[in-house]
């Protein structure tokens, strides 16, 4: 096992690699963490994800813009790819499978991909349908995989209306499924009107929302562990 000092050093390295959008350092840090016997979950959540939380803050403060944020996300993925095979399944009490995609007629998928990444990090099984996804495909995939959550994304008002149809169809087939919407033209009002369960503000803020989601997951994880300790 790694000493506390070594652990702190590696965690800081991973965190900085993400903040400094340095893919090479992220890969290197991830490999070193594994070699030093660091717990992969620890490295991901306290290293990579904690770095991404800082990026989210910097983005909100307009210190970072879209390109930096995207490069940070790439750096996070580079480290994650190495660490992920070593993750012990998190026992969160949350069943994790998600169907995600950008609805028919829409090819804008940056926001969707970032949200997807966050689900990846959180250990969900993600069924990514990609972009310009025919509306029936969402229902089909949900039924096939029996996922708990369906995430719909749209960038344009013209394609946004397709979400309503997907939601209606999903509700008919499976009233229990949770549905989340995201994308520039979507608002809480739209989400309420269409009958969705949740809403992520827009493509750029989706990152922050996803981070909040991870943060709450982290909290849940800590609580679970605290219970176990008792």
């Amino acid at each position, binding site marked *: 096992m790694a000493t506390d000092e070594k652990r702190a050093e590696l965690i800081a390295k991973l965190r900085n690699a993400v903040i400094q959008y340095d893919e*090479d350092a992220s890969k290197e840090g991830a490999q070193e963490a594994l070699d030093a016997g660091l717990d992969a979950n620890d490295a991901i959540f306290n290293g990579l994800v904690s770095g991404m939380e800082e990026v989210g803050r910097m983005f909100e403060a307009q210190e970072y*813009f*879209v*390109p930096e944020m*995207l*490069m940070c996300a790439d750096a996070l*993925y580079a480290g994650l790819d190495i660490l992920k095979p070593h993750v012990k399944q998190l026992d969160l009490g949350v069943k994790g499978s998600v169907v995600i995609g950008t609805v028919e007629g829409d090819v804008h998928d*940056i926001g969707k991909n*970032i949200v997807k990444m966050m689900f990846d990090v959180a250990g969900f099984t993600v069924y990514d349908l990609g972009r310009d996804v025919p509306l029936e495909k969402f229902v089909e995939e949900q039924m096939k995989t029996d996922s708990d959550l369906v995430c719909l994304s749209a960038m344009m008002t013209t394609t946004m209306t397709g979400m309503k149809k997907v939601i209606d169809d999903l509700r008919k087939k499976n009233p229990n499924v949770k549905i989340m919407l995201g994308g520039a033209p979507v608002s809480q009002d739209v989400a309420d009107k269409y009958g969705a369960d949740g809403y992520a503000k827009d493509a750029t803020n989706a990152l922050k929302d996803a981070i909040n989601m991870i943060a709450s997951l982290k909290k849940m994880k800590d609580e679970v562990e605290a219970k176990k300790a008792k």
Partner: protein
Amino acid sequence: MKTSLRRELLDHGATVVGVADLRGYLSGEIAHLDRAVSIGVGRRLNEDTLSLLVKLQKRAVRFLKARGHRTLAIPPDSDRKNSTFISKLYSLFNHKMAATSAGLGWIGKNGLLINPDYGPRLSLATVLTDARLSADVPIERCLCGSCMICIEHCPSKAITGSEWSRSSPFVELVKLNACRSHKAAKRAIDNKPNCGLCINICPYGRKNQAPSIKHISNKISRTGSLELGVSRLDII
């Protein structure tokens, strides 16, 4: 800072390095990174030009980051992994635009960057940054003059003969469909889509070519060179 960056890149294998001021030329997402370091590497057959370009880019990124500046490396056109997040933004940017703005050359009739010393035989990569590097003087218009060699030798007659200038960068220089269909036909015959005659034939920079290519292309162009103006003979 610019001089030492340039020297560092040239020392490590870059053929030409220029800095462009791209204020007002960039789309909103990347507009805060308005200086471009344009890096050109001489194309030599059988050498790994791409890996050299990528190495040079990383070197430039490290150099600028170490001095506290932001960077965005736009990889060479032929080395774009489309799986990354940042690759979505690459299409907002054109290497040749950066190169002409950095004074490395002009866009020739064959639609390629023509450098006075190396002709169209350069592979390009760019690093965008917010460092206040002093910019080189841009080249404003096509300096091919009356030279028509590439037009005459193009097997698919794809080169229109129009002239590029920085103020009208969107004129059609090459009929892309004709060029593409020729490459497809080539692929069907001998499995290689390569044509590149308009690169090989260009009289600019032939002097600085690797000897092996020089030999071949001299043969091709002996007829063509006769039609050149006297002022070009020294280059050939």
